[in-house]
């Protein structure tokens, strides 16, 4: 019997020839990531466990992203605790305010993740880096502390669901619409403990950034991880930019998949996830005309250059509706600089958008775009749970940056194809 990508990676990391779904393995972790919310409690737990030195200063990534720059004394104090620990330990990969951005984005931009790796991150969207063919899982602060001290963690080997996607997305339909469609089909708990594997011509056509959007939202089907089958695009990127050569780990032809889906990307229409569930997925046409107060383009799901290009293209030469605030937050300093260089930020601000610094911004409801009672936001982020972005009587509709931009112009949820 052949092996899936997840099985191959976990077998290698635990020193076994093969592993099977359900088996519990202790694996060596290749890289650990923590952010501004999870770093201080993880560092505290590390010390309480009686550890003194982190297991490998070159394999720990610390990125501040949820609330940066600090918005109050609590977050300032937590950030300071993080900086103190980083300096004391000599951790190499530290991305402070103005140097990095959203932790999942910097993993890709700084060449910290590649095919075949085991990445553990103290953030549920750690699965984003599965777009580069790695096995990436989110954990909490205690597991992160255990890895900090030992470089090891136990895993239950997941069974795999495979998605083969044919055809090509028809712009302005984006990879966000595809993953929303998939979550609508699988359900919010449809993939508990499973690995999702994405492959096929539609993925081969996507940029790494577009693939990251899909891998990112695997967790919204409760999956353990989401991996896009890596190809030449990934190896070329890593080789040209970082001189990293990593073999591409792919599933065997006779690997066992618990479920298989075949989809045609050309049939995907613009989608939204309506409140308060990510699997409450509808076609934009079903909710068209719903008035919005805020429109947000950003987050680890859709704050990349592809997303800013699409948003700028749609709002270029037009004005955001007078009732609406359009908030744009590039995912990283690199995306920010690139957008500036390409003239995208000028087009966005001309239209009436505000540009926030690279951070999670409005997505987790901690700063930069918190909603008041009764307000509605159309957002390119990943969760629309009750009170996610602010007051419990506010609402979030999740959509692609194209749909967010079109809706910002019209003041109500709008199919982006009318502006394309």
């Amino acid at each position, binding site marked *: 019997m052949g092996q899936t990508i997840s099985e191959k990676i976990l077998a290698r990391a635990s020193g076994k020839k093969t592993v099977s779904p359900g088996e519990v393995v202790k694996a060596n972790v290749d890289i650990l990531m923590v952010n501004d919310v999870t770093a201080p409690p993880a560092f505290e737990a590390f010390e309480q466990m009686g550890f003194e030195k982190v297991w490998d200063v070159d394999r720990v990534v610390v990125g501040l992203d949820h609330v940066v720059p600090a918005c109050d004394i609590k977050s300032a104090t*937590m950030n300071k605790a993080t900086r103190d620990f980083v300096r004391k330990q000599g951790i190499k990969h530290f991305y402070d305010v103005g140097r990095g951005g959203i932790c999942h984005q910097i993993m890709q931009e700084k060449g910290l993740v590649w095919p075949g790796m085991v990445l553990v991150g103290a953030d549920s969207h750690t699965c984003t880096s599965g777009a580069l063919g790695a096995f990436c899982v989110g*954990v909490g602060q205690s597991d992160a502390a255990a890895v900090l001290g030992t470089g090891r963690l136990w895993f239950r080997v997941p069974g795999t669901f495979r998605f083969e996607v044919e055809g090509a997305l028809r712009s302005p339909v984006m990879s966000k619409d595809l993953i929303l469609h998939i979550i609508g089909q699988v359900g*919010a708990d449809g993939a508990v403990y499973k690995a999702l594997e994405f492959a096929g011509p539609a993925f081969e056509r996507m940029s790494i950034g577009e693939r990251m959007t899909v891998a990112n939202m695997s967790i919204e089907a409760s999956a353990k991880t989401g991996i896009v089958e890596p190809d030449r695009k990934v190896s070329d990127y890593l080789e040209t930019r970082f001189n990293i050569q990593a073999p591409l780990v792919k599933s065997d032809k006779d690997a066992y998949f618990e479920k298989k889906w075949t989809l045609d990307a050309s049939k995907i229409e613009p989608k939204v996830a309506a409140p308060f569930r990510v699997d409450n997925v509808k076609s934009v046409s079903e909710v068209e005309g719903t008035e919005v107060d805020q429109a947000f383009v950003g987050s680890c799901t859709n704050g990349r250059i592809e997303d800013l290009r699409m948003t700028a293209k749609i709002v270029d030469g037009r004005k955001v509706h007078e009732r609406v605030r359009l908030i744009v937050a590039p995912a990283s300093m690199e995306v920010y600089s690139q957008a500036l260089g390409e003239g995208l930020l000028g087009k966005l601000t001309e239209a009436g958008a505000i540009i926030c610094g690279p951070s999670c911004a409005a997505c987790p*409801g901690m700063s930069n775009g918190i909603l008041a009672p009764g307000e509605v936001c159309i957002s390119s982020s990943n969760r629309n749970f009750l009170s996610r972005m602010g007051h419990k009587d506010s609402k979030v509709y999740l959509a692609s940056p194209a749909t967010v931009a079109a809706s910002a112009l019209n003041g109500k949820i709008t199919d982006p194809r009318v502006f394309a």
Partner: protein
Amino acid sequence: MTKIVSKALSMGDDVDTDMILPARYLMIMDESELASHAFEDMKPEFRKKFETNKIIVAGRNFGCGSSREHAPIALRKAGIKAIIAESYARIFYRNAVNQGMIVLEAENVSSLVRDGDDIEVDLDTFKVVNITKGVALPVREVPKFMAEILKAGGLVNYLRDHKDEW
């Protein structure tokens, strides 16, 4: 044999971590302060109920969403002694075990337990009985090493003493 007996607090499917603890409280490190905000938006009345109903009984995918370990910490500190659900989101499950919170899986548990039923959890065997109805609940066996983490009171305590076995 150590046992917990308390009343059930019923919840539905897909209880997410933003419901358990909204993100606006993530910059809080003090556990009692976290506990004071548990379920604040969705069910503010739960806070009062936590005093008498210390065993959460829920449906599928309990704890879905974010990786915040603040969620099980807030529940533990609010007085919750155990959670019995049909299934869990995996990060929440790991985090709860790591916090020493007893998390048990039982098929159909939401139809076998009504809010307010008296529930007994055996802390040695992790067997559960609905005392009110006089029936044992079909709880799945807890893997041995997870039981050890639970008996140590969480991962911090466990690793303090068991670094060689990790």
